C-alpha cells in the first residue's frame, strides 16, 4: 500500500490507530524464514499459548499478542519488548499450540535478532558476563545440601575452564564487550 500523507489538523478520531503503512511488512517474512518460523503464519489467534503460559499474567504483551505483532510487522515493539527476555522457555505454549506454531522458538529467534541490534536488557548482559568469568551460571555453594544427600563436596568432573575458553570465542563475548 502506498504511503499516504499525514492529514493536516486534528485527528478525525480519538482512537489513535497504529498507522499500518509505518509498520515493517518484511518482519513477518524475516521471522518466517528463520529456522523456527515455518509455521508462523498458521496462527489462527486462538490464544492457547497465552492460556498455557505460567507467567503471561504479568506481561504487557501476551504470547499470542507478540505473535500477532510479528504478523502485523511491529518489529521495533517486539524486538525491544521485555517479554521475549522474560520468557521462561518452559515450552508449554509450543506444546499446546493446535497449529504447531513454534512459539517459544520464535521468541528465541526474536532474542537473536534483538541481540544483533544490541537490544539486550542489562541483566541479561550481566548473566553473560557471569558465564564468561565463571564458566557457569550457578556456583555450587550449599555444601551441606550435597552432604545431606550423601554426595561428595565437589561436583565430580566439573571443569569450567574449557567452557570459559570456548565462550571467549563466541558471540557471548562480543555481546558483553559491546554491552559494556
Amino acid at each position, binding site marked *: 500500500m502506498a504511503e499516504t500523507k499525514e492529514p493536516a489538523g486534528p485527528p478525525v478520531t480519538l482512537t489513535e490507530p497504529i498507522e499500518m503503512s509505518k509498520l515493517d511488512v518484511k518482519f513477518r517474512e524475516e521471522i518466517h524464514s528463520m529456522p523456527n518460523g515455518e509455521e508462523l503464519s498458521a496462527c489462527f489467534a486462538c490464544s492457547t499459548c*497465552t*492460556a498455557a503460559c505460567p507467567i503471561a499474567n504479568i506481561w504487557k504483551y501476551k504470547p499470542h499478542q507478540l505473535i500477532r505483532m510479528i504478523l502485523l510487522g511491529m518489529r521495533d515493539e517486539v524486538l525491544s519488548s521485555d517479554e521475549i527476555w522474560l520468557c521462561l522457555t518452559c515450552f508449554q505454549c509450543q506444546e499446546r499450540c493446535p497449529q504447531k506454531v513454534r512459539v517459544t522458538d520464535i521468541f528465541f529467534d526474536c532474542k537473536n535478532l534483538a541481540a544483533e541490534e544490541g537490544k539486550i536488557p542489562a541483566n541479561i548482559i550481566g548473566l553473560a558476563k557471569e558465564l564468561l568469568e565463571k564458566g557457569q551460571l550457578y556456583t555450587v555453594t550449599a555444601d551441606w545440601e550435597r552432604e545431606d544427600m550423601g554426595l561428595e563436596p565437589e561436583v565430580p568432573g566439573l571443569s569450567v575452564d574449557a567452557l570459559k575458553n570456548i565462550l571467549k570465542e563466541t558471540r557471548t563475548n562480543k555481546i558483553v564487550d559491546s554491552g559494556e
Partner: protein
Amino acid sequence: MSNPVLVIGAGVAGMTAAVELADSGIKAILVERKETVGGNALDLYKAFPTDDCFYCFEGNRWRPGIRKCFYRSALIDQPNITLKMNSEIDEISGAPGQFKVKLTKGPEYIHPRKCTMCGLCLEKSKAFHLLSPQCQPQAVVFNPEKTDDGAKQAEEECPTKAINLNAQPVEETIQVSDIIIATGYHELQPINVDEYKYGKYPNIITQLELAKIIDPNSDSGGVLVRPSDGKPAKRVMMVQCVGSRDENYYPYCSKICCIFALKHASILTQERDDVRVSVVYMDIRTYERYERYYRRSRESGVEFLRGRVSLVQPREDDTLDITVYDSLLNKYLKFTVDLFVLSSALEPPEGMDKLIETLGIKSASGFVAAADPASEDEVVIGDHIYACGTALGPAEVPESVTQARAVVSKILQSRK
C-alpha cells in the same frame, strides 16, 4: 442386477439408505456391529436443527408410526430389509457389481421377533438387560459373560420361547451388487489432551456423555447430575475444539460440536433449574441456519468466553477450579464448576482403515473420501461403492439423511 445392496452400519445414514432402498423395491442387507440400531444418534435426546427427534423432520411427517420409532420398526417389518445385528464384515472380494462379502453374525441369544420385552428374564438374571425402551430390534440383550442359573431358568420359563443360550456365531458369504458405507463416527476420548485432564476426574466428560446424562431415559431421568456422586450439577463449563482443528490430533473442524454445545447449553439453561453454562470457544461456527441457535442461546443466558482454558484443578468436593484466559478482556478468569464438558473431535470409527484398504478406496483424514473430489458426486466412492453420513467425515443428521437419499438415488439411476 437383482442382487441386494449391502449397507454397512445401521445409524442414521445406514437406516435411511436401507429403508429408502427397500421402499423402492430393492433388497437391502443392513449389517450392524452393535446390539441395537441407531448408532450415535440413539444417545441424543434432541437433535438439531429442530430440537426434535431426527426422524420427525418435515419430509417424514406423512409416514405412519410414532416419534423416534418409525425407521426402527421398518427394519423388522419391511420384507426387503434383512437386518444382521452383532455382525462384522470379515472379507470383501469379487468384481464391482458382484461383490462377495464374508461376514460373521453374532450369536442370536434372543429371537427379536419372539421377544415381547415382558421383563421376566430381567428379574431372573443380571445377564439380561434392556438397552433402551426404544431399542431396535425390540428385544432384550444377553451378556454371556454373566450367565448364571437364573439365565437358564429364564430360558425355560420365557413365555414366548425367545431365548436360546446355546446360540452360536454364524459365518456366511453373501453376494451383493453395491456397497454403501455408513459406518459413522466415534467421539474422541481426549485422554491425551493433557491440559483438560479427561479420564482423571469423574466430572470431566465429553458432549456425548453429557447427552446421555440429560436424556430422559438416563439413570437420573434427565436431571443434570455429576457422575462423581449423582448429585445435581448447577455450574457447567464447556470447551470447544478439543482435538479438532489441532495438528497434533485431527486437523479438520468437527463441524457439529459448536451446534452440539449450543444445543446442550440451551437445554440446560432453559429446561433445567438454576443451571449456569459457560462456553469457552476460539471460533463459533454456526453455518447456514444455525446462527439463530447461537443468538437464542445468548438470549437464554449462556455465557460465552472467547479464549482458552489455562488450568484445571480438582477440589476435594469433586468440583473443579478452572482458570480461563479471556483473550478479549486480556484477563485470566477463575471459575468453580460441577461439570467440565469437552466438545471432543469426531474421529473415524474403529476398523475404518481396514475397510478402506480392503476396498481400495480413497481416504481423507481417516474417513472415506469421494472417488473424484472435484465432482459433485460426493457420495460416490468407487465402482458400485457409495458412502453417506459421517463415514464421509463429520456431518449433522439432516446432512447424513440427505446423503443417504443421494446414494439411493444414484443406485436407482444405475438400475434403470
